[in-house]
């Protein structure tokens, strides 16, 4: 069935496919590397609160790549009679779960660290014998493990960010941001461990509190994005800094057509792509079906992200109120 309201490609145009393949490969590398860092941190956790926080952040760091990989499979599925709108929303749901987990765990570690600080708890770190007979202070191994968990993540983050922009993928973008910010977590945890080394018992809990505030902040930010997505908020650019200009562009294109007296466009995000409706007031009813069909083909060619647009002729347009003025 050929539907003029839907673009030819289902998700990504062919030229973006190369980027997607590269992003998928990067996410696999991320997962494998994070797993190794998680195992390494687990064996060097000791009694350090800051190490625990850094460890949890690395575990949570797994969720965006996993969400991305699952979503990149699920959303390829074509719409069917049970899911007539397709599977674009799979990403948003994965994203919502991950951000709630991030928020809850961040809040827990924050509580744990602050209460340890208030109880004047002095963290003990003792000797370990990982290599044969030579005992070594666990603190040194903690520092090595933290360095290992930080440096490659920053590099991965830098590689992912341009891909996220190309693919218009918010999960990938958030993942890149988290990776890039990870040096702060590792750095704070390292300062905490060095602090313990110098006999500053509070350094560890303070570092852990700072890290957990950061986790909570990340969680809140991602939660807002996920909720906005599920609420069909107007599309925003990939770093969420401003509204995407595409709806305005589509409206302007419509207004430029000589048979259109008035037009209004509303779009929502579905993963990479945008879907929505255009309402038009035609000057007359002459060849209405043909005009709408031609307009549709033209508009879908504007931008690869515009995936589905239903154009509806209406006698007059009822424009939505600006936000916050209806109460």
């Amino acid at each position, binding site marked *: 069935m050929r539907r003029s309201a839907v673009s030819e490609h289902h998700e990504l145009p062919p030229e973006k496919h190369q980027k997607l393949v590269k992003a998928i490969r990067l996410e696999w590398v991320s997962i494998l590397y994070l797993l190794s860092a998680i195992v390494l941190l687990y064996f060097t956790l000791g*009694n350090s609160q800051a190490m625990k926080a850094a460890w949890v952040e690395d575990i949570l760091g797994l969720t965006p790549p996993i969400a991305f990989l699952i979503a990149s499979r699920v959303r390829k599925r074509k719409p069917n009679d049970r899911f007539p709108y397709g599977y674009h929303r799979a990403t948003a749901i994965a994203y919502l779960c991950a951000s709630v987990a991030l928020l809850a765990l961040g809040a827990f570690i924050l509580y744990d660290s602050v209460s340890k600080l208030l109880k004047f*708890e*002095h*963290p*003990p*770190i*003792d*000797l*370990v*014998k990982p290599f044969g007979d030579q*005992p070594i*202070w666990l*603190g*040194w191994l903690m*520092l*090595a493990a933290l*360095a290992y968990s*930080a*440096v490659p993540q*920053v*590099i991965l*983050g830098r590689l992912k960010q341009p891909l996220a922009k190309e693919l218009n993928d918010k999960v990938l973008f958030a993942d890149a*941001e988290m990776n*890039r*910010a990870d*040096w*702060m977590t*590792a*750095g704070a945890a*390292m*300062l905490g*461990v*060095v602090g*313990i*080394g*110098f*006999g*500053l*018992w509070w350094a560890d809990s303070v570092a852990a509190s700072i890290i957990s505030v950061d986790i909570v902040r990340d969680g809140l930010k991602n939660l807002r994005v996920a909720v906005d997505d599920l609420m069909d908020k107007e599309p925003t650019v990939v770093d969420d800094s401003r509204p995407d200009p595409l709806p305005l562009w589509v409206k302007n294109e419509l207004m430029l057509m000589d048979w259109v007296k008035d037009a209004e466009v509303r779009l929502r995000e579905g993963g990479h792509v945008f879907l929505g409706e255009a309402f038009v007031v035609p000057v007359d009813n002459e060849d209405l079906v043909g005009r709408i069909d031609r307009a549709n083909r033209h508009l879908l060619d504007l931008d690869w992200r515009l995936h589905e647009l239903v154009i509806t002729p209406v006698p007059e347009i009822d424009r939505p109120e600006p936000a916050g003025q209806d109460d």
Partner: protein
Amino acid sequence: MTAPPGTVRAVLLVTLLALLAAGCGIPRDPESTLDRVRGGTLRAGITASEPWTTLEGGQPGGVEVELVNRFAGELGATVVWVDGSEADLISALEMRELDLVVGGLTADTPWQAKAAITRSYATTRVVVAVPSSQPVPDDIAGVRVAVEDGTDAAGILEDKTDAIAVRVPDVTQVKGSAVAIEEWRLADLDLRDTGVHLSKSKHVMATPMGENAFLVRLERFLIANQGEVPTLLDAAVRRE
């Protein structure tokens, strides 16, 4: 939250600086326990738990007392012993009125949140053994095994194996039949391990939370001296 240029290098630099500090007495104690004990007094808490700690006639003795005395000797410190229940001693440790607590503590002690536990310096097992003169049974199912009354080994033998547990007041007095006994006593009592191990204990000492220089110094001592433990155990048994 983006990494400014050179952050990768900054992380590496912190690591390097930290490693350079390795030689300069890291870790340190927040409350200077090690410095105070060195050439001064070591305040040690003791609760009796044979053969690790004994208090015969109020006089501290046993394997752990011997180890603590040697440790104090290395630091040029005199030991002041304080006896009490585990709960009392750990509370005193928490308030930094003691520097060390011994009393047959094991790595699974519930005091982990209140005291810094050392790594274990000895592991002991309770095993089912038979006299050396007898063949080792393939299976202890149905075998009568003497076990000391009121110990966890008695319960484990009863619940987790098919052997018939015979509760006795002192297993070392049992002659000519299978017994559940500490592995380190086998040679001494001329017994042979059947390969059935009932429980395992990792022996530790307790130090104040976060006094990492002191903790690390004690652990280095324990690692260097853990080979002495079997000799000390034998000596403790012979004195009985």
